[in-house]
């Protein structure tokens, strides 16, 4: 009972709560914050996307550069999907599926982003890569 009251009083007043923290608590807070920041930077960095990998079923159907503007038709189990590549981005433009979730994903613009049409078993994933050059002349 006393413990409950003590904990409730901590919640009500941040000032007293802080005063009650032990060195182990501080350690945990500091270290966790550092860890979160570090993970954020490493895992969530937006890498330059250069290509899109299209998968049909469990195989890689094709890989296309994002530099050339083009429309690609992929024939899946339930019908034809139309994929648009334009100016460094890609999207499902048309799909034979009922819910159109894949189309509603919109444009993929960064490496690691993906869109999937489950009923038609087609997926798009943007790939970034260590380029052997700084810029492309075309």
């Amino acid at each position, binding site marked *: 009972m006393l413990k409950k009251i003590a904990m409730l009083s901590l919640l009500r007043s941040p000032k007293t709560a802080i005063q009650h923290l032990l*060195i182990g608590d501080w*350690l945990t807070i500091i270290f966790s914050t550092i860890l979160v920041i570090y993970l954020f930077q490493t895992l969530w960095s937006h890498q330059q996307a250069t290509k899109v990998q299209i998968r049909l079923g469990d195989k890689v159907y094709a*890989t296309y550069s994002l530099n*050339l503007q083009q429309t690609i038709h992929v024939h899946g189990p339930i019908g034809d999907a139309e994929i648009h590549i334009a100016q460094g981005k890609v999207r499902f433009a048309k799909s034979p599926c009922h819910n159109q979730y894949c189309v509603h994903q919109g444009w993929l613009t960064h490496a690691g982003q993906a869109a999937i049409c489950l009923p038609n078993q087609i997926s798009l994933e943007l790939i970034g890569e260590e380029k052997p050059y*700084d810029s*492309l002349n*075309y």
Partner: protein
Amino acid sequence: MRKGPTTLLFAAILAIGIFSIRAFNKEPLYHSQSYVFGTLVDISIYGETDERAKLLANHVFQDFQHLHDQLHAWKPITDSHPSELGILNNAFAQGKQPVTISSQLANMLTDTTQLSVKSQGLFNPAIGHLISTWGFQRDEFSAVNIDAEKIKSLVKANPRMTDIVIQNNTAYSSNPDVKLDLGGYAKGYALDMAADYLRKQQVKNALINIGGNIIAIGQHGAKPWRVGIQHPRKPAAIATLDLNDGWAIGTSGDYQRYFTLNGKRYCHIIDPNTGYPVQHTQAVTVLIPPQTNAGVLSDVASKPIFIAAAENKSKAASIFGIQYFMVIDQQSNIFVTKALAQKLNWVDPDVKKDSHVKLITLP
């Protein structure tokens, strides 16, 4: 309680260690892309703080946007912000009344006229009507109905840069069929403008890419900037080369702006003599050594080479003194000058396997 300080110390050292490794691995390279000037523009700045680099890059993007607005070749003049070029074209079509133009545009017109005359009309920015007839004065391209009669009459009308009279910052055309389209010049002009600005701002290392045309300042840290050259038929580079301080590179190709009709490809590069798109060549790349208008040359100089028939390509290259160039013809045969071959690193597996790269001997 006594364990507390030791563990704290350990955790602090670990954290400092993690951050230090990350900080030392980051090179001072700022990279930014923007869709301006009707195309993808890519700026890399090395050796500046992120804040400064961002300011500089944004200034360059803004300059490009102004240039784009000023030189837009087909925005209707009824638009709320018509382009200066559009207004001029409209005046040309309507008669010989001189129209006031900015000194910047006047300089561009004088410059392009000189280049056009030098190329004996192979580089001809006055054929806007032909470009429009083929449907290339649009943001997207689709097959057009080919009106042979119309094309014939447009060719016969013979619009030329020399039809334009520029005096006291006014201009008029003696030929109403002149329609200016600076598509083959503007990107190069913008490259020179951006490079000049960055150098004046004491930037020592940068790489500017406007729709594929690239100019280099300084290096990428300890090594030169490296550029890839797009394979005309594959979404990959066919070769790479180092682009040293002040050098520029440009490629004219049939693989970005084109449509197919009845199995034939019609690209945006029109031969002013026939009125039809060039079909014998896939791509021409020119490499320009450091000079005042390296950017302009990297844009303009590839066109005459692209348009000229195979046996005349070397001559077309000599017009602008181009020593480093490559031609890929419609059969995918590759021809390179020895000077450029020495600089290229082939990365396409088919080219590496075959080695059927032919050397061009310059006249």
